[in-house]
């Protein structure tokens, strides 16, 4: 008991030696689009990238730039416009929530 008390007193008086020093560090940050679903559930590519079809056909594109836009439904689900326009031809429902599909907005 006596020994322990002695040690405590020493610790109080002088700061303990640093256990380690940080010499260098690398900061890593993550980001994502502020949308409910950032992946198109139809082709499983990020909505902000070109859809699978446009990617596959990119070699044939003579304009150089791809115009693969995103479409949001009234239900707030988003998909590639290319993917969704193929799907609504046979079933005019949102593939995720099965609600009647109507476009809220389009763009990037």
């Amino acid at each position: 008991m006596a020994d322990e008390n002695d040690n405590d007193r020493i610790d109080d008086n002088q700061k303990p030696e640093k256990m380690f020093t940080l010499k260098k560090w690398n900061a890593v940050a993550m980001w994502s689009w502020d949308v409910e679903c950032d992946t198109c559930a139809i082709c499983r590519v990020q909505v902000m990238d070109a859809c699978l079809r446009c990617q596959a056909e990119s070699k044939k594109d003579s304009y150089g730039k791809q115009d693969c836009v995103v479409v949001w439904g009234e239900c707030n689900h988003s998909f590639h416009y290319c993917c969704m326009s193929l799907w609504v031809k046979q079933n005019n429902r949102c593939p995720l929530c099965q609600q009647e599909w109507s476009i809220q907005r389009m763009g990037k």
Partner: protein
Amino acid sequence: MITLSQRLKQKNQNDDSPNTRAPIRDRLLVKEAQEMSQLLPASCSVNYVNENDLSKFTLIVQPTEGYWEGGTFRFDINVTEEYNMVPPIVKCTTKLWHPNISETGEVCLSLLRRHSVDGMGWSPIRRLNDVVWGLHALFTDLLNFEDPLNVDAADQFRHSKEDFKLKVMEYVANYARE
């Protein structure tokens, strides 16, 4: 005389429509086939017709419980070029007595319906894995006597579960042995 320009023109015409979908299907299949094999139910296995073609395979279901226990049931699955806008085409090649599978092999599973009014049919968010688990569940959870494809089988079940059970076992013994 066949000229090169004519040949090219012909080739381009042949390349139209369905073939332009194929690359999408094949890209989707690379991921989906892998996912399917990783998540395969214990009672199921998959055989590819041709190792280099992920679009045609046989699913083998060997139920470990229920009426069809002990049987080996084969389903031919064909993922067409329009995938994933349309569901795979599934045919049961093992004859069996089942309310939701006809004796000729048509399968009644809502997921496999191309057009559906109730929102229960195919959706492009579905994957091969969902199809496999759906078929697997036809022998357990999704077994449905209320909306049968094989009406005789469902009627028989309603009248006598014992008779139904015997007929299932008879079919298993005759057609579904490994």
